[in-house]
């Protein structure tokens, strides 16, 4: 993997870069006016980093997260995921990228209500045509990793908020993604459950998972190795409390 463009941070080894954004811009048309939701954003995320993206609502952090998650395509600029340019890929190629390389965790969990915890965790593997025997094994492992083996056959409405988010994290990591994208993962949780989720994310990070987290909770941002502040679609400060952030 040799990045073609100039590295944003020349000091780091190129093949260690999971995400490389260069002049990434996303425009929306609202009536006659143009909104620059993401405006000329350039940064790298290296393998094993824990990055927090913070900013007030409307600062463009959710749009940026959608771009990182290949749910949206940039108006201009480039995005390389593990060295491979993903801007301009077809819908199906993007779906494939999401399936293999990206795990999502949402504020509202987005569990399918009619399915058990195990079935929810299994869901991404169904679309990847993973054989049932392999699925069972991976579901068991993912649920064990979030400490919910005993809740495998419960439906979301039988689980607490914290448990639901842990199921969602198990689902996001079951396909062994390159990055985990978390959008306000503690936003719907009380302090105690929120702390549990933060501890779980930190543990996954220590085990080598690359995490990009969107939040406006400073205490949550403080756990990240690196803090990126956003305002009006731009990155304000590149380095936060931690330095480097690699495990």
């Amino acid at each position: 993997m040799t990045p073609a463009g100039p590295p944003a941070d020349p000091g780091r080894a190129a093949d260690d870069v999971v995400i490389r954004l260069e002049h990434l811009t996303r425009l929306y048309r609202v009536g006659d006016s143009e909104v620059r939701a993401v405006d000329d954003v350039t940064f790298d995320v290296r393998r094993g980093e824990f990055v927090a993206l913070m900013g007030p609502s409307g600062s463009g952090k959710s749009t940026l997260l959608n771009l990182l998650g290949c749910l949206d395509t940039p108006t201009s600029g480039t995005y390389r995921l593990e060295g491979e340019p993903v801007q301009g890929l077809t819908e199906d190629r993007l779906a494939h990228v999401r399936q293999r390389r990206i795990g999502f965790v949402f504020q509202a969990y987005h569990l399918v209500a009619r399915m058990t915890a195990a079935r929810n965790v299994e869901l991404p593997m169904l679309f990847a045509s993973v054989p049932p025997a392999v699925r069972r094994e991976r579901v068991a492992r993912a649920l064990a990793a979030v400490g919910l083996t005993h809740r495998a056959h419960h439906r979301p409405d039988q689980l607490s908020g914290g448990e639901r988010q842990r199921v969602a994290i198990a689902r996001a990591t079951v396909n062994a993604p390159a990055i985990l994208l978390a959008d306000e993962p503690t936003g719907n949780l009380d302090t105690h459950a929120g702390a549990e989720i933060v501890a779980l994310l930190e543990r996954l990070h220590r085990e080598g998972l690359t995490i990009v987290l969107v939040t406006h909770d400073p205490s949550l941002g403080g756990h990240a190795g690196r803090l990126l502040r956003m305002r009006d679609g731009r990155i304000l400060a590149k380095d936060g409390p931690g330095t480097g952030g690699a495990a």
Partner: protein
Amino acid sequence: MRTADLLALATESLRLHRLRTTLTVTGIAIGVTAVLLLTTLGEAAKRYVVQEFASIGTNLVIVVPGRTETTGFPGATGGTVRNLTIADAAAIARQAPAVRLVAPMSAGTASFEYAGRSRDIRVLGTTAEYAAVRNVAMRLGSFLPPGDPERGAPAAVIGSTVQREVFGNENPLGRQVRIGRWRFRVIGVMEESGQSFGLNTDDAAMVPVATCLRMFDQPTLFRVAVQVRDAALMPEALGQIRDVLLRRHDNEEDFTLITQDAMLATFKAVIDALTAALAGIAAVSLAVAGIGIMNVMLVSVSERTGEIGLLKALGARRRQILRLFLTEALLLAGGGALAGIVAGLAIVFAGAATWPDLPLRPSPTWLAVVSVLALGAGLLFGLMPARRAARLPAAEALRGHA
């Protein structure tokens, strides 16, 4: 995606809304049952007609006086019509080698009187050959004796209804009866044969043709029934009969030859047209049920917008989403087809048990057609909602609206 997983996912979401699913399936089932019943009825009617035609004899040609423009049905006459005579019938028997038997026929209505009882019946004049041509079975005695068709003996063969109504338990053989102003002696009773061809021979008496013509003062035969030696000789026989009659009628084609096949074909065509029309009407209910599927699927897609966004975020491709929703639509249609076929077959078998005379039998062809129609409706009406689901933009769908 694996087919088993696809089916499991689709089934899970259909099970969530049991009532909605049941109602939609019922709609399809009603359409399927309707198509199935009406086509089965049509097929049964056709089979019944074929049976009836087979029972009146084989390899038959009917000669009717008068010219009809359309073949296949005795209809209105046109042009100058010469009498069709007993001599014509005899000439056909003598001069057409492909012909096995010829039975001249005349008909009238008269009162049948015996021992103070009287009954208006149909009187048919014919010859001994008629019994062989039309497969007449005898219950008692014998049919009209062979002999010169131009000479009539005062002998009558009666139908089963006449026997029952006029004679009761009395043996009619050898009894002197009066038909119209003429005296006859009963020499035989025919087996019950039912209505065939608009001619109920159960409530009729058969007398020698020459006698019948004199009784009703008729100059012409009503028709001549001809049995051809072999089905393969049919075209030849038709040519020979035509030649014989043209020769005798100064080259005027004032008669019409109707084959059993042509009549049967006409009946079949009429029944087929009726069946198709009824099946078409029933198919409308299937289309309505299909719209029901579309409605349910559209509701489902809009209810599950967030779920669709999630599936996309988890890496589901457009095609996989499309297939997932199409599978749901097809399961609804397939379930409806299955339920409809089961209900339809149950009704058909119940009907067949209740009316043994009606040859009600489910036709594999129509079972296949109706299954294809139902699944086709599912596919057709499921496609639009499924495409809508597949095209939802992932990010907007995740937020629960699109």
